[in-house]
């Protein structure tokens, strides 16, 4: 069957080697290589479940009075967007399964991309000739965060409205252009004009997904042109690639992973409740609720917004830089700028301009690993600070005390982590070098 299909394609494209070469592509085997694949399969699940939901979601802010099946909301004034999302969740068969699977898939998508990026960073896989692959992946991460934020924002429940209020204030905090830009995007001042909801919708279901799909395409094309990296091993060198061929061994494994990822997401979508929007009620500017937590991938941003003290830059009785700028614009800009620049920075610092196909283990390059660990700590501290109110409720630890502590940790912990990681990596590297020296000195 496959053989005949390959032949048929070969005859019709006059290309005999491309498909066969693709089927013979060699995948190095290492468990840490699976995260990118998991992210890819999450994206497939997101597209399928998302497409299903577009048949039911009504991206309109026209206000109606709810008369649906969910009694606690009956008689309430709400947008059609929210009403249709509640209808999809509670009245459409398999609607809630699709919505919850979609939401879980988004959370796992972001987690898989993040872990994949950490793997790439700590093993030096971003080095020449793979810098562009790293940058496309990084852009993908940024696009995915935005995509997730827009996804839960467009439902127009109370939680998403609070998230949009914060997004609005972050946008207006950009000096000079912030106010006009936000007014333009929102079709008027917050909570926005009638066009805003449909803009959010088209961006979430078309513009950003197409961008993500295109980035995935470029990412994978470049990976396959250069072939995968691999760890050093008995047969592995800079000049070869050792592993399973795509057909049949790797393809079957990867399909098994696809089925497993989808299966777990569907199980979670069916059994583990997430974002129960009917409990939140519709958004109104004058309403908010306590204990609101965003999805995990926004946690580092809400934490940064909470940790920055009430500084605003003012002059002559006018605000120049509003407070949300520090945590909501400057901090993520610094995080992404550092990551984008890292391949160039490392090349500059190390003077290493050669190409690499063999990966480092983290201990092989103590400086990079120490920097990466410190950087991750610098992002992780606000991430945990984003849940300080939950910690207060769960354990009774004073909120203001937590914030004061976290502010100190934000500055101090990365330094400590840097020094500790550097020492550990050097100790590991030295003990391995000593072990090798001993082994070569003692041929018996």
């Amino acid at each position, binding site marked *: 069957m496959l053989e005949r299909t390959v032949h048929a394609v070969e005859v019709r494209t006059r290309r005999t080697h491309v498909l066969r070469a693709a089927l013979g592509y*060699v995948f190095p085997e290492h468990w840490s290589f699976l995260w990118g694949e998991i992210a890819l399969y999450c994206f497939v699940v997101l597209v399928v479940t998302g497409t299903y939901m577009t048949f039911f979601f009504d991206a309109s802010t026209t206000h109606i009075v709810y008369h649906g099946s969910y009694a606690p909301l009956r008689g309430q004034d709400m947008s059609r967007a929210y009403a249709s999302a509640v209808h999809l969740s509670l009245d459409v068969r398999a609607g809630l*399964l699709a919505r*919850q*699977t979609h939401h879980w898939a988004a959370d796992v998508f972001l987690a898989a991309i993040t872990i994949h990026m950490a793997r790439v960073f700590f093993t030096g896989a971003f080095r020449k000739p793979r810098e562009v692959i790293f940058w496309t992946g990084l852009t993908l991460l940024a696009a995915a965060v935005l995509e997730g934020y827009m996804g839960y924002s467009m439902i127009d429940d109370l939680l998403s409205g609070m998230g949009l*209020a*914060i997004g*609005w*204030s972050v946008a*207006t*905090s950009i*000096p*000079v252009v*912030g*106010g*006009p830009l*936000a*007014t*333009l995007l929102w*079709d*008027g*001042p917050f909570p926005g*004009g009638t*066009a805003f909801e449909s803009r959010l919708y088209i961006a979430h279901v078309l513009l950003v997904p197409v961008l993500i799909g295109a980035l995935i395409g470029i990412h994978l094309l470049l990976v396959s042109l250069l072939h995968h990296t691999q760890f050093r091993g008995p047969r592995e060198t*800079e*000049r070869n*690639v050792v*592993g*399973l061929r795509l057909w*049949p*061994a790797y393809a*079957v494994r990867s*399909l*098994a992973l696809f*089925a*497993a990822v989808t*299966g777990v997401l*569907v*199980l979670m*979508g*069916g*059994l583990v409740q997430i974002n129960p929007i009917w409990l939140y009620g519709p958004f*109104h*500017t*004058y*309403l*908010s609720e*306590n204990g609101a937590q965003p999805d995990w991938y926004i946690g580092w941003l*809400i934490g940064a*917004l*909470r940790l920055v*003290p*009430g500084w*605003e830059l003012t002059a002559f*009785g006018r*605000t120049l830089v*509003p*407070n*949300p700028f520090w945590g909501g614009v400057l901090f993520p800009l610094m995080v992404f700028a550092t990551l984008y620049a890292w391949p160039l920075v490392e090349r500059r610092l190390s003077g290493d301009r050669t190409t690499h196909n063999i990966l480092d283990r983290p201990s092989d390059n103590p400086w990079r690993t120490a920097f990466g660990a410190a950087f991750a700590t610098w992002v992780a501290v606000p991430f945990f600070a984003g849940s300080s*109110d939950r910690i207060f409720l769960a354990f009774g630890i004073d909120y203001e005390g937590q*914030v004061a502590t976290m502010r100190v940790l934000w500055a101090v912990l990365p330094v400590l982590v840097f020094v500790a990681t550097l020492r550990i990596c050097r100790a590991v590297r030295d003990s391995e070098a000593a072990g090798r020296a001993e082994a070569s000195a003692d041929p018996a």
Partner: protein
Amino acid sequence: MSAPRREAAVAGLLLIVAGCAVAFVVAYATDAGTQALGLTLGAALLALAAALAAAGAWILPNEISEEPRRPPAAEDDEKKTVAALRPAGASITRRRLLAGTGAAAAAGLAGAAVVPLASLGPWMGDTLVESPWRRGTRVVDVEGQPIAADALDPGGFLTAFPAGADIDATGSPIVVVRVDPRRLRLPEARRAWAPDGLVAYSKICTHAGCAVSMLRSPLFSAHVPGPALVCPCHYSTFDVTDGGTVLFGPAGRPLPQLPLSIRSDGTVAAAGPLSGDVGPAWFGTRAPGRSGGW
């Protein structure tokens, strides 16, 4: 395990896939609920994963292959590239002129392509938030009913709106709190703004625009601070007794205060406009001299 047995095991797993898939269809047809749908479809997919993994591990060839990579491009390859492409531009004599005018053309077209985006929305006026509050505006609840001055006991608070205004506009909602008048420490100019201990502030947080919907109102201890309004988004905390100044959190400006008056019929009205710009700041917001939180 022998080869036929392994294949039988994979076939068994595939049958489980089919069975679970049928169960999913039945669950759908009988409207058995989200849990049943997720369980059956998830089980089908996980059984499929197991079948594929088993087939990969037991039945299909698994030999490790080795393939040479194309050697890394040597330095002289760049020279070859340049040498191959250079003749294409050999006929150009005024390179700079053409590059400059070409860049101008590209920049012009890019500008022309971007400018229509200005049609997306209204252009920002002098201010982002128009507040409907004026001297004499009546204070009403969400249903539009006037609020009586005695509706609140000390320590109580409620959300209110300007009569006749859009309640979803950021400039509209206020929080009215009743505090013991002796605890009020309002600035001199605002002494008359809180008749009978009724104080009102904009309900929109000056940090990030969420509704400030919590009142921290300690009832017994003399050691804890007085009543404060708290925003649930980033926990900016505003002193109710002291003109809405920031006690804690990231907010950089106090909550704008609304001067109140009690009408002859016992209901509440505004005695003037809000004391400052409502909601999150932007470039050019009026910044009062008082500092933000810590």
